[in-house]
């Protein structure tokens, strides 16, 4: 018991050291009681980009925007449905021209009124190439985008011609094509309104962002913590149920979990993989594991002839059947993933287009059929598949190895599948961007908004923004175009599902599993839930 001896010795030394300086620590308990004034602390990660609505494309920055901003629409934290927030009404007759009426009486936390201009200015800023906003493509459907944000060269306009302020509270949007579900996309944070101080004193705004949401930022130390307090002047119906949230940056989610166990932190929204085995006994009911709008797939390089010849869809189907999804999600992910049976996500609900079992037999583990299909399809290109992934984050190695094991066992060949790690995420993206993939590669899709359109069009439409494998299919494109032109939402969803059928028949990408959001919280909190984006619904949390 070398470890034990050591621990005792080290603990004694530490005890001596501590005795000399009056042990630090002691609970920082807020004596707020149940009156909604208590402040809670939550784990956070350092946002990758400056905190601007149109520049934030990852969860950590998104958390803050969700607390500080409210847009025209908001996705219901439970159902994911887009509901009017600041929008009084959004009207259209042709699915291409929209008239937006903004509710009056809303204010930014600095007192400025939220008007139609707050939206139009913010969107023009977001779309403009010179501002380097990483979510600029969200405005790509609006007329004039190609002038404001050309693919190359410099921009010839600073504002979108498709946006016109027609009154204090009204503005019109003109799109370049019919897009019936466009209003439902407006709940995304990139479409948030911005106060005039954002444009007049940008540097100061970035130090301490000002928005129109239920919280205001009271202090922000970049890289370590952000203190948000309830904003009493908030006029929305979803007022904060607690006094504020302190977001603490953790270098490692293990430390955040340890802090939760020690009573030093109230909310952790990323349970470390190594703790998943203990989390139920540690936290009991205070562990949340709910579906999020994230699907993981294996994409293929269709620019490589080997993967784009007749019969190769059989190879892909065979590979899909060779993966034992149930076993992998249970043993490696401790059921924080659900085996995928379609190409969308359960958070859409059946009404929203999720179809349980759409993939059918192709996503069911069947080693004998798998082997047969791969052989019928002409065998694995080059006799071996290499699954490429980035090894720096997200513990992808474990599941890629497991998937390969499963494939090797099914095909009865030790060398049928190997993992191909890439050092960093940037390099991984780099190789994908340069079309250097020679076999399947890891693809993860986190939805921007809970619409079936968002799970299909950006990923599988010809030359779409995230169609990394360069898959192209005329039938699919046609169905998507039809769906976007369809004014009746339920008919549009039907068409999208037909398009998804094309994806299935060609096995454009192998669906692996839906990812859940997982969180744990302290005894002080109640009413904790994760929204479909796997972000905690902070404003509804009660702290006692």
């Amino acid at each position, binding site marked *: 018991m070398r470890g034990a001896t050591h621990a005792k010795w080290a603990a004694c030394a530490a005890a001596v050291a501590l005795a000399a300086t009056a042990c630090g620590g002691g609970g920082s308990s807020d004596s707020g009681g149940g009156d909604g004034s208590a402040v809670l602390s939550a784990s956070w990660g350092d946002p*990758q980009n400056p905190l601007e609505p149109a520049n934030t494309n990852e969860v950590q920055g998104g958390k803050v925007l969700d607390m500080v901003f409210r847009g025209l629409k908001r996705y219901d934290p439970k159902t994911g449905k887009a509901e009017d927030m600041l929008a009084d009404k959004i009207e259209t007759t042709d699915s291409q021209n929209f008239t937006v009426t903004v509710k009056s009486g809303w204010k930014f936390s600095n007192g400025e009124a939220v008007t139609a201009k707050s939206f139009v200015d913010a969107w023009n800023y977001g779309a403009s190439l010179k501002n380097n906003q990483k979510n600029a493509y969200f405005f790509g459907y609006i007329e004039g985008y190609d002038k404001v944000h050309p693919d*190359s060269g410099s921009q010839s306009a600073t504002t979108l011609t498709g946006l016109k302020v027609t009154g204090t509270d009204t503005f019109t949007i003109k799109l370049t094509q019919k897009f019936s579900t466009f209003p439902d996309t407006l709940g995304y944070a990139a479409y948030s309104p911005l106060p005039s101080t954002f444009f007049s004193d940008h540097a100061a705004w970035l130090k301490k962002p000002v928005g129109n949401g239920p919280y205001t930022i009271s202090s922000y130390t970049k*890289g370590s913590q952000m203190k948000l307090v309830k904003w009493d002047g908030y006029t929305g119906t979803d007022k904060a149920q607690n006094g504020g949230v302190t977001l603490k940056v953790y270098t490692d989610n293990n430390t955040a979990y340890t802090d939760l166990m020690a009573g030093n932190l109230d909310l952790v929204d990323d349970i470390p993989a190594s703790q998943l085995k203990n989390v139920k006994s540690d936290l009991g009911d205070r562990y949340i594991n709910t579906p999020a709008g994230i699907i993981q797939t294996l994409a293929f390089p269709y620019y490589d002839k080997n993967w784009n010849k007749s019969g190769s869809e059989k190879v892909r189907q065979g590979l899909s059947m060779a993966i034992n999804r149930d076993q992998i999600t249970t043993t490696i992910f401790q059921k924080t993933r659900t085996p995928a049976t379609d190409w969308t996500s359960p958070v859409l609900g059946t009404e929203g287009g999720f179809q349980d079992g759409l993939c059918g037999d192709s996503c069911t583990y069947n080693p004998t059929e798998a082997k047969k299909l791969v052989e019928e399809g002409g065998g694995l290109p080059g006799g071996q598949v290499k699954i490429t992934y980035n090894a720096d984050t997200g513990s992808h190695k474990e599941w890629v190895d497991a998937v390969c094991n499963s494939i090797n066992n099914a095909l009865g060949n030790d060398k049928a599948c190997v993992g191909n790690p890439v050092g960093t*995420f940037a390099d991984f993206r*780099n190789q994908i961007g340069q079309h250097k993939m020679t076999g399947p590669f890891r693809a993860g899709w986190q939805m921007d908004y809970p619409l079936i359109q968002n799970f299909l069009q950006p990923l599988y439409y010809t030359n779409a923004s995230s169609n990394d494998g360069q898959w192209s299919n005329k039938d699919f494109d046609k169905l998507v175009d039809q769906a976007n032109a369809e004014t009746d939402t339920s008919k549009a969803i039907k068409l999208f599902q037909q398009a998804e059928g094309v994806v299935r028949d060609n096995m454009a990408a192998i669906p692996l599993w839906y990812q859940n959001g997982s969180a744990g919280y302290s005894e002080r909190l109640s009413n904790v839930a994760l929204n479909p984006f796997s972000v905690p619904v902070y404003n509804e949390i009660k702290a006692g």
Partner: protein
Amino acid sequence: MGRYVVRRLLQMIPVFIGATLLIFLMVNVMGDPVAGLCGERQCDPATAAQLKREFGLDKPVWQQYLTYMGNVFTGDFGTAFNGQKVTELMATAFPVTIRLTIVAIVFEVVIGITLGVLTGLKRGRPVDTTVLLLTLVVISVPTFVTGLLLQLLLGVEWGWIKPSVSPEATFSELIVPGLVLASVSLAYVTRLTRTSIAENRRSDYVRTAVAKGLPRHRVIIRHLLRNSLIPVVTFIGTDIGALMGGAIVTERIFNIHGVGYQLYQGIVRQNTQTVVGFVTVLVLVFLIANLLVDLLYAVLDPRIRYA
């Protein structure tokens, strides 16, 4: 002496240039950092091109390096991808890591040298054997095991400390992380001091001092220890740089937002400016610490003189 210092300072220049150039090349070999900035999707080509232009990534590496070095001499270390100045990151990270290093060095000096003297004087006795065994254990257990174990026991089980360090990272919060960081070096300091003391105990000048009738503590501190410290000082001096750059494991475990954390983020996000900037400063720390060690020799042993 003055000439010696000047010569040493001049020697720093090629080392400094070589080290930064190497780091610059290594980070650049990893590919285009802008590719990872847009998450799981491809950045749109126009934005990617503009970001590259803004960070100067569209130029050849040698030109990037020259511009970078030119800027460094004016105190401009560039901008990290999240829009913060690298100097700003340094201003928050270095004080924290310096405090952590000070705590660690104090532990090394106080505990390490005391135990070393104790065991060196009582060679072969039970105290000596016990301490030797303990240092062996400390050296063989990796830092992250020590760190996680202490964090679990003191932080969660017994509740004596907070398992993580607050953004302010005060000295009292850094005691346990400092001890963890120091542990391995501490064991080496103990062993070095012990050997050195045991050797010098039999030397002529100690015998002379004892024969003169000097009190025991004076013999030990003024004569024996002072002469035995040279290898120890060498070790501690080089350890300063190693502790500052190598605290990454300890900083991660205890959530300390210091140099290790920033370097880690810089590497994961492939942020050339951050990585090169921090490494540049660390190289300087190494060089200066080594210079100080060499100068200390003369203080400890007046026979050592520099031309």
